[in-house]
């Protein structure tokens, strides 16, 4: 072992060539991934920035007038549908993130307990997260069916729903919003739970035992040990959750297409309608860029969190 260390030192000192060569190799190894990310994430991102400042359309990439400054953005701020979409996006992502965290935490504590068949239980509760959502969303659409809704059937037979024809889940503005939130929560709470569970199981049992011996009751143990130790992980989970919900397109698009009216229109669906379906690339790109400041904020907070850990 001593020889090995000596040899390593010598090789580093003796020739700069070794270090240099491993650096070249390093950048070579890094290159494919970097090229991919620059070419298909960074460049498109700047392309979106460029589009958003022009009146580009699918049929006319340079636009009729070309560069139009911030007109797309100012136009959007006056656009009723856009404002509804912005408001809905905030409601949708905040409510789902909070409900998710509550249910996720509960489930995580349940999965922390010892019981037989835990593996199977974990597999089953994770199904909503592991089956592609584009496919399960059809099951929800079927359960929300105006005529054959099984949820209405269950509700009426348990006397929870009293309305004669049941609830028009996707047909009324408020219930449509509640429905997309419900589906999102169903899909994502298992994920919050497993993330949190990873945090909980990483707390060394001896710390908790030591606290017990020192006479800390369970409340003190939670407040002083468990909560501070899982706070960062809970936070990371919440962050991922917010990002995914804030930019979610699949659930809303497949369930309500933003309807009825614009009751469930969110930024992502509106961007799709404007930018792809009606081909106004410039205006559509401007809609998506409204997602960016918030994502940027998330990233900063995330980085802070990482740095705190390293100190």
């Amino acid at each position, binding site marked *: *072992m001593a020889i*090995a260390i000596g040899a390593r030192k010598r090789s580093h000192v003796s020739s700069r060539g070794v270090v240099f060569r491993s650096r070249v*190799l*390093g950048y070579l*190894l*890094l290159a*494919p*991934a970097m090229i*991919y*990310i620059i070419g*298909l*994430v960074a*460049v498109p*991102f700047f*392309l*979106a920035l460029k*589009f958003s400042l022009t009146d580009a359309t699918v049929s006319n990439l340079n636009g009729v007038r070309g560069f139009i400054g911030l007109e797309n953005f100012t136009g959007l701020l006056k656009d009723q549908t856009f404002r509804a979409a912005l408001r809905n996006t905030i409601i949708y992502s905040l409510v789902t993130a909070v409900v998710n965290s509550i249910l996720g935490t509960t489930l995580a504590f*349940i999965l922390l*307990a010892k019981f037989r068949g835990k593996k199977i*239980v974990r*597999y089953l509760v*994770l*199904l*909503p997260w592991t*089956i*592609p*959502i584009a*496919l*399960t969303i*059809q*099951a*929800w659409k*079927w*359960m929300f*069916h105006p005529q*054959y809704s*099984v949820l209405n059937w269950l509700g009426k037979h348990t006397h929870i729903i009293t309305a004669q024809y049941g609830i028009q889940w996707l047909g009324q503005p408020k219930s449509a919003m509640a429905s997309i939130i419900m589906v999102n929560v*169903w899909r994502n709470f298992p994920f919050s739970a*497993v*993330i949190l569970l*990873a*945090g909980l199981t990483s707390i060394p049992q001896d710390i908790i035992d030591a606290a017990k011996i020192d006479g800390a009751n369970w409340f003190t143990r939670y407040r002083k040990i468990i909560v501070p130790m899982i706070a960062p*992980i809970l936070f*990371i989970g919440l962050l*991922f959750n917010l990002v*995914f919900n804030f*930019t*979610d*397109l*699949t659930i809303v698009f497949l369930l309500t297409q933003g309807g009825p009216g614009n009751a469930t229109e969110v930024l992502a669906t509106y*961007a*799709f309608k404007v930018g*792809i379906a009606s081909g106004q*690339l410039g205006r*559509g*790109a401007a809609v*998506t*860029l409204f*997602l960016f400041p918030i994502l940027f904020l998330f990233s900063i907070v*995330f980085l802070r969190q990482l740095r705190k850990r390293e100190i």
Partner: protein
Amino acid sequence: MAVNEAIASLAPKQDTAQRVAPVSAGAVIRRILLLLGILVFVVVAIFPVYYMIITTFKANDDLYNLTHFPLWFTDKATFGHVQYLFQKTEFRRWLINSYLIALGTVVITVLTAVPAGYALARLNLPGAGPLSIGIFLTYLVPPSLLFIPLSQVVSRLHLIDNIWALVVIYPTFTIPFCTWLMMGFFKTIPFDIEEAALIDGCNRIQAIRRVVLPLSRAGIFSIMMFAFTLALQEFIYALVFIHGKESKPVTLGVVTDLIRGDVFYWGELMAGGIIAGLPVAILYNFFLDDFIAGITAGSVK
């Protein structure tokens, strides 16, 4: 007596040393609450999936009859919907497309993320720290922000309506996370082992091939699974880039082609969802622990 035993069996299992102590009422209540909690979560999680399965095998007359009990079969179960799916739609084609796209994504992801992860974890590159964080952050740049400009990139590459478009685009969301995961795996391999190989006369690349890669087989396998299942789950890019029936992946084909105007083929829709979805769920479960480790690596130490 039997009741007492039943109650005792509900109590948490304890080590032999503690078993002599009588089971407190509090422990039993806690145990019952726990089991109730498990039951509620499991029912909520699997109900839609259960309902999909029932619908898949229900004849239409049974399905669209409001007087029938919806949670089980009133008439005989049928394979009609599954048959229709395979014989009268492009379902088989969509499944094949999905798996081809996912395979392509895996190949590209492994070829880029493994070397990048190694370089960032091992080679002491100047700027490796910020670079690796930067790579991870691109994971947070969502498809919703990129699909408009990417639609232009794809049409410039003449790949619209071609499954290759998705093979090229999907690695944008698998590479960042997989690179991050691989960094984690490479860091767990003791440096000494690699160094010993270097001293024994291997050059760096030989050391990687003979020592590092075999040791990180588990890590590479889990990023393969990760990329594979993520590619199978994707929907947004497929919706934007693919329009022709022939080139759709299954997530897109099922939801677009089994709904004609206002007519929904519910039995077929559910059948397609279950057949395409359950294998993904099973695969996902295998590498879930690695996935969680990767996500939480940034926050727990």
